[in-house]
């Protein structure tokens, strides 16, 4: 393809080329991982590199106009005493999101007959948030915008389960709200699967949808009541009563999905 316009060649004046080359040499030795490798010839632009807190580089760039501007910008970006980039924690760890733990917990609920309770001992809320977003996404694909509704219902139902469990368990009930919300959120997985599956069920098949919803709600109830009873004290003799409360919660969510 021929060019329609003439591109004028860009020529950079090689002022301070020798000192710029010296700066570039010194900067190459500072070994910051994200620094672009400087070009070999001295008349090229030294690339902007963000030397966070490396005082050696900023002190070496005082010579030359290019070095001066870059030094100001890099020392601006470096600041005084902030930790260097490689000392920072990975972002997900800092936020408290552990994807492998989330995946392990989610996978433990996928088997409806044998639920691994030890994996759920330390509760987290990032898995439930992810499942909530997945449910909202599938509802969105079905044409229903219910982000606020589902979030509100998750909050209300976890408070409901918390109150019911602690009142039934009596003196030695020790389910706390964080664990409760975490369990209610993780056991939403079957409802998420139901909403995904019901996208493909044809429109007129009413009873099929109800039977399907019933199966998934029972799966959810079994998972939630098993986990709640095994993770908190005092619930063993009230399994059926707690299971009924969980059943009500997940039937409510399945109503959102079917209708």
């Amino acid at each position, binding site marked *: 393809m021929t060019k329609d316009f003439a591109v004028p060649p860009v020529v950079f004046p090689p002022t301070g080329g020798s000192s710029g080359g010296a700066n570039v040499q010194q900067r190459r030795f500072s070994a910051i991982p994200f620094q672009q490798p400087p070009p070999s010839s001295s008349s090229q632009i030294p690339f902007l590199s963000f030397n966070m807190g490396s005082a050696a580089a900023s002190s070496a760039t005082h010579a030359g106009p290019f070095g001066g501007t870059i030094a100001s910008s890099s020392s601006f970006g470096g600041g005084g005493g902030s930790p260097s980039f490689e000392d920072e924690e990975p972002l997900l760890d800092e936020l408290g999101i552990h994807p492998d733990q989330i995946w392990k917990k989610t996978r433990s609920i996928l088997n409806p007959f044998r639920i691994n309770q030890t994996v759920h001992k330390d509760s987290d809320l990032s898995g439930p948030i992810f499942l909530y977003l997945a449910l909202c996404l599938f509802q969105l694909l079905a044409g229903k915008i219910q982000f606020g509704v589902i979030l509100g219902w998750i909050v209300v139902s976890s408070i409901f389960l*918390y109150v*019911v469990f*602690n*009142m*039934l*368990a009596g*003196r030695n*009930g020790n389910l706390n709200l964080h664990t409760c919300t975490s369990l209610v959120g993780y056991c939403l997985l079957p409802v998420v699967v139901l909403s995904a599956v019901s996208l493909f069920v044809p429109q007129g098949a009413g009873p099929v949808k109800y039977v399907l919803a019933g199966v998934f709600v029972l799966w959810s109830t079994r998972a939630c009541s098993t986990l709640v009873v095994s993770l908190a004290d005092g619930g063993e003799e009230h399994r*059926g009563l707690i299971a009924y409360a969980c059943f009500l919660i997940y039937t409510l969510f399945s*109503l959102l999905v079917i209708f």
Partner: protein
Amino acid sequence: MYNNMGPQPGMPMHQGIPQPGMPMHPAIPQPSPSEYVQSNISRYFSDPQYYFQVNDQYVRNKLKIVLFPFLHRGHWTRISEPVGGRLSYKPPIYDINAPDLYIPLMAFGTYVVLAGLSLGLYGKFSPEALNWLFVKGMVGWFLQVMLLKISLLSLGSGEAPLLDIVAYAGYTFTGLCLAVLGKIIWGYSYYVLIPWTCLCTGVFLVKTMKRVLFAEARSYDSSRHHYLLIFVALAQFPLLIWLGNISVNWLF
């Protein structure tokens, strides 16, 4: 913490006993979540823990009493026991006539869920409609509590604990759930189940209120008692018909 240090020469370390010079870490007893819930609720009501001492067998038998009060062969009085100098009633596990809050709460939840289901089957489901149904159920519960409380007050004995009245009022939702379930399964059964439910709830409340009045009333005025009890039973009919009529607008 003490295990890691091991035996040190010259200073015997005793587990758990604070040594002079060691930093003191007094153990602050953390309230368990159930105590936290209970301590916050018991500031305003009588002890709510009493109403949740239930088990499977109690729930099943109580449901039988509430739904078929004619078939209850035993007596209706609550068993009382002297506790700390005062007379208090036995908890629900030991006494079938004691009120509990688990069944009313679950019955209310079941009513909301079933009402949502019935709305959905007629194609009118939406989350806002479900919220209105929740509000309607709450208003119905409140009206029932008011009815019982006012009838108790007008006979001069308002000392029954509030949660008792709330529990008795909440038992109407069990019959209501049955009626709504019947409507879902076969439309015409609703017209049989609603009068049946009203009658059963009326009988149950009359029998319970009679015992409450006998226990608490200062003056026994026979005809006023009976008229009020009949009024309570008759008021169930409009209330339950209103609550059982599941529709999008919540007023009727």
